[in-house]
């Protein structure tokens, strides 16, 4: 029998705010001392009252709009009870009854074409703290720096049916949320986390099978492996009665490549949601709603069409650029500065990509000043700086955003020389020390001149117009 996999995702995304969701502690604790960013509110002291961070609601709304959701204009917070030391108040403040955004739609594209994935809801909530078990054998150490860091949870309907679709969906979420600048969405940094709800049923059936939830996947690759493993486990159980499937939460072990049922104590979940009496409803008036609506970015597809139809880029270039808002922004300011869309796209998609790849950085990590890139492109296209030296300057610009390419080129001797007497001198020297290349060239092997050309360029540190150099070389050879 043929089976199909039915997958729904719960994606947690850390919002890029400065402070926490209900208190003024810093939301950024990378590299901080344990419990450096805590206060009585976020470490759960009795009697403390939460005060909602406006930007969290801004970003929640914005995320909802990016995913075509309906925004609940009165949105409320609820308490979700569970006991674990990473949750000092013994409840998480989250949204259950009236989440900020509901009923959205996200379009994805895979090798099988386009597909729409329905979003059930997006809710705002606080993150939990971190537990450290390996400092001492007798206790668990608790760090509340992450407690109350704002998250949104994006809950999809069970509309996904393969690992490929899940990857496309996560990429799409990341892309849209980064365009809106509400979140980093980097799984490796923990700013995007994903739980997978999966069941299997005979192809074409409209009845859902037994559903399991998988947690603890730390990369897209791990998610794909987990989906493949879990699908096979379900089919095996159905076909060969290898085990009885039960609705449960399972933990993915990426090293063993297997999922394991979590102990029932951990999953005794009955969260007893109830309205949090400490947080009044958040009412989003027209002015607030419209200001967020007006702040939405140009969507990737709109950008793509504009790049092709108005700026004249190829479809391929446009497709590559819109993958990342960081690339788009750099492209747009480089283009505004140098006036050539084609050159700007080329420098970004080849030279910048090469540097990113060599440093094992993703598209989104591009951090080059677009205006400076535009100036550099102009210097190279006007022949003031050689292309090879232009690339060197670009690599340095990756390390230092403040570099002004022209000043930098002058200071480091990257300006093309118009001093023909110097070029002639260098050409003569090259000819004198490469008699074989000269003979080859004279006997009709035109490519032989490249050896001389390379030697001269090296001597001139690349600061020479290639055409001028070529002309001088040929003239000097002909004199012999």
């Amino acid at each position, binding site marked *: 029998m043929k089976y199909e996999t039915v997958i729904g995702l719960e994606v947690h995304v850390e919002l890029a705010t400065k402070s926490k969701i209900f208190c*003024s502690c810093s939301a950024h604790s990378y590299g901080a001392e344990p419990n450096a960013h805590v*206060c009585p509110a976020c470490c759960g002291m009795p009697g403390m009252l939460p005060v909602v961070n406006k930007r969290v609601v801004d970003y929640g709304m914005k995320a909802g709009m990016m995913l075509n959701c309906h925004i609940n204009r009165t949105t409320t917070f609820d308490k979700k009870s569970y006991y674990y030391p990473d949750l000092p108040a013994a409840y998480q403040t989250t949204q259950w009854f009236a989440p900020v955004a509901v009923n959205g739609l996200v379009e994805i594209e895979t090798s099988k074409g386009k597909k729409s994935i329905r979003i059930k809801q997006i809710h705002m909530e606080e993150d939990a703290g971190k537990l450290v078990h390996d400092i001492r054998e007798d*206790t668990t150490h608790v760090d509340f720096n992450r407690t109350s860091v704002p998250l949104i949870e994006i809950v999809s309907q069970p509309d996904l049916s393969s690992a490929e679709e899940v990857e496309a969906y996560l990429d799409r979420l990341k892309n849209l949320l980064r365009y809106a600048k509400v979140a980093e969405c980097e799984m490796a940094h923990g700013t995007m986390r994903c739980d997978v709800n999966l069941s299997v049923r005979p192809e074409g059936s409209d009845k859902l099978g037994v559903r399991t939830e998988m947690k603890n996947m730390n990369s897209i690759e791990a998610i794909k492996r987990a989906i493949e493993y879990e699908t096979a486990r379900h089919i095996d159980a159905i076909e060969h009665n290898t085990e009885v499937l039960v609705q449960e939460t399972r933990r993915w072990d990426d090293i063993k490549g297997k999922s394991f049922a979590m102990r029932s104590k951990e999953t005794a979940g009955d969260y007893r949601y109830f309205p949090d009496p400490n947080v009044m409803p958040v009412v989003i008036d027209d002015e607030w709603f419209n200001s967020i609506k007006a702040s939405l970015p140009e969507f990737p597809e709109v950008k793509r069409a504009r790049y092709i139809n108005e700026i004249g880029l190829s479809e391929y270039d446009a497709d590559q650029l819109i993958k990342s808002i960081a690339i788009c922004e750099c492209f747009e300011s480089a283009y505004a500065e140098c006036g050539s869309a084609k050159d700007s796209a080329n420098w970004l998609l080849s030279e910048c990509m090469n540097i990113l790849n060599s440093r094992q950085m993703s598209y989104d990590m591009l951090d080059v000043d677009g205006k400076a890139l535009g100036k550099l492109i102009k210097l190279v296209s006007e022949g003031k700086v050689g292309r090879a030296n232009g690339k060197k300057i670009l690599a340095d610009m990756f390390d230092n955003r403040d570099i002004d390419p022209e000043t930098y080129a002058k200071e480091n001797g990257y300006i093309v020389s118009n001093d023909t007497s110097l070029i002639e001198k260098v050409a003569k020297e090259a000819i004198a020390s490469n008699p074989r290349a000269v003979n080859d060239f004279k006997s009709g092997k035109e490519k032989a001149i490249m050896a001389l050309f390379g030697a001269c360029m090296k001597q001139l540190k690349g600061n020479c117009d290639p055409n001028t150099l070529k002309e001088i070389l040929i003239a000097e050879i002909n004199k012999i």
Partner: protein
Amino acid sequence: MDREILRRLELLNQLRLTEEEKQTFLEFFNSKKSNLEALDNAVNTQNVERMVHVMPVMTVVREDVVKQPFSRDDLQRSAPETDEGYWCVPRVVE
């Protein structure tokens, strides 16, 4: 309210009740249950919007500004045990 529900509540609230306490709780909840049923039968709540708060109020929001008025040492002064800036709790994994 039966013993199964009580057992579940015990688990969810991390309590361990004595037989005597169990009896007291069962009697208490069952007497309250009839009060609730009386209310449920007397008032029709169909088409009544969910009440979030008794007062028709909305929350005030704050700007996204970082402040750190408390020191870790102040907060950890009442802790039974701390270690290198961490709070220490009974071990939760094996």
